[in-house]
């Protein structure tokens, strides 16, 4: 058994359909809540059913809230799917989208753009370029003799993240107060009221990556038993590793470029789903997209409303929600494992 659990036949057929239907309903509900509530009081449902909105209310709903909620949904889905992919690739439940170094490159690109005075699309584009540069560099470094070594990949990613963080600290140390504030808020994570083009990119790329990873779902299931075991089952392990790394990194790059560093989505959501639905990636991947989308929509709703008229960075909210929740999960998992070990010890005795 690996840390991601045994691959069994749990939740197949009708069970899967119900699970996915429930997650779709949860996402629709989250989006409805997200649009209904915000810093300003807008009588969303009353007016939708009975009358219209004022010009101000229309602008708030259609130009600010709805694009932001849809962006949160797309980005949450991307991060959760990237988390599933990296946990499968690294066969490690602690893997999240930021562990392999691409987020460091994206953050550095975004910070450089902010200091260069770029605004609008300049910052996300620069962040995405930084992410791509990191992706290419990390893959080259971690590939040896045609093999992408997981251990080297992890180490290289950690070093890239540390190096990027050091450069960011340096840039922060020479920034003016205004620039420093902009950098801090960028790094803390914030969902934008995205333009149509950005939304199209988020959802288009998100769906494409999820589908591409879904195509490898059976191979991820095989990889749970180890690289040799997967190879014996006919999986081209090297091709799978490269593909997973690239697709997961692209998802991470897009998320960080658009919204900064939003943690815990890619770590907590796959864990919760694995406990509920089992480790079969054919269900886990689409479920992660839906659940991650709902989670981030609700987290952003909290960020927008808890401290109104100010807004909390959404990365702070996901950490405050996800951190304790993850600790509770770990404690329960630890208790279950401990109980299992005691039983095994008793039988041996």
């Amino acid at each position, binding site marked *: 058994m690996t840390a991601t659990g045994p691959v069994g036949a749990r939740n197949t057929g009708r069970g899967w359909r119900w699970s996915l239907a429930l997650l779709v309903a949860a996402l629709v509900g989250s989006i409805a809540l997200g649009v209904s509530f*915000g*810093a*300003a*009081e807008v009588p969303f449902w009353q007016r939708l059913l009975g009358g219209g909105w004022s*010009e*101000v209310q229309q*602008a*708030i709903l259609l*130009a*600010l*809230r709805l694009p932001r909620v849809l962006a949160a949904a797309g980005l949450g889905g991307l991060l959760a799917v990237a988390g599933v992919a990296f946990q499968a690739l690294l066969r490690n439940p602690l893997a999240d989208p930021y562990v392999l170094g691409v987020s460091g490159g994206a953050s550095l690109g975004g910070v450089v753009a902010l200091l260069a*005075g770029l*605004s609008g699309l300049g910052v996300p584009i620069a962040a995405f370029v930084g992410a791509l540069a990191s992706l290419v560099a990390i893959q080259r470094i971690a590939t040896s003799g045609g093999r992408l070594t997981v251990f080297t990949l992890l180490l290289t990613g950690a070093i890239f993240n540390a190096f990027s963080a050091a450069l960011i600290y340096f840039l922060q*140390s*020479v920034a*003016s*107060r*205004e620039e420093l*504030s*902009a950098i801090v*808020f960028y790094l803390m994570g*914030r969902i934008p*009221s995205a333009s149509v083009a950005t939304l199209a990119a988020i959802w288009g790329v998100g769906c494409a990556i999820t589908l591409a990873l879904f195509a490898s779902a059976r191979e991820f299931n095989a990889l749970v038993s180890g690289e040799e075991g997967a190879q014996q089952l006919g999986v081209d392990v090297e091709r799978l590793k490269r593909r997973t790394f690239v697709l997961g990194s692209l998802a991470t790059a897009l998320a960080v470029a658009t919204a900064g560093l939003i943690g815990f989505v890619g770590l907590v959501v796959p864990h919760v789903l694995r406990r509920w639905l089992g480790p079969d990636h054919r269900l886990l991947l689409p479920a992660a997209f839906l659940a991650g989308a709902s989670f981030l929509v609700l987290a952003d709703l909290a960020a*927008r409303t808890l401290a*109104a*008229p*100010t*807004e909390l960075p959404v990365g702070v909210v996901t950490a405050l929600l996800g951190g304790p929740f993850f600790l509770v999960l770990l404690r329960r998992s630890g208790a279950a494992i401990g109980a299992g070990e005691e039983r095994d010890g008793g039988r041996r005795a």
Partner: protein
Amino acid sequence: MPRALRARLLGVLVVAVGCAPKALPPVVTERYAVMAPAAAETLAELGVADRIVAVGDFVDYPVRLRSLPKIGAYDSPNAERLVELRVTHLFTTASEAGRGEHARLGGLGIRVVALDTSTFDGTLAAISRIAEEVGRPSEARQLLERMNARIEAVRRRAEDRPRRRVLVAVGHDPIFVAGPGSHLDALLRLAGGENVAHDAVAPYQLMSLEMILDRAPEVIIDSADNRPGTAHGFGDGSWGQWPFLPAVRERRVAHVDPWRLLVPGPRLADMAELMGRLIHPELFGPAAPEDLAGLPVAEEPAR
């Protein structure tokens, strides 16, 4: 030894001591380093700018200070440079983060004057404090009298006018606004405005764009952009995407260089008058484009 000889020797000794060159008391010339831009302007107004020998990275007015050696940013002045330049006084902004460093500099014999200019009253108090440190109390009193008279004139003229809802933006992406406790909040209120961020919990705080739209400001003073080449003046700018806002509809969106409003010091009265012109132009006269522009690039005449 014969008595006469002793007397002569004693006399010679007394004369020798009397003629010996006496050690002069050390002449202490005060040498100032200034981290806070507002403190630099205050020192210049008090007529002691010639004592400034070093400035922080963000001090660039008066213009003649730009050529002075730089000693670092805000809470981290370079101690070695301060000692090398024989600085006697460091004028800086009070902050928790800088306390340890300030204590260390005090141990090196540098008098650290930490000033709180985050509020309107704090700014006025800082001018008095600086004047005490540099020995110019009467100049400070006269300066404060002139400032208070001009500020009071603005307040009296505007007090009977209907209050206009005002947004003062000091940052974009996210939008940071001036809230209660900031000198900008005090200025806009005395100039006949009502702050749309009246319930902010910090002097400068992020504000939701939703909330800004909902509160429909009638005047927008956008002081968020000080990048070189940025156009300052009247015009909707990015606020034009919300044409229903009263400020956009009535063409009361002003892009003001941060230097004009965000350095609370001797120019506080200028800021009050500028606020009056932006909030109630029908009363104070409209602001000219040069009133909104950045700091002068040319050397100004000596005081």
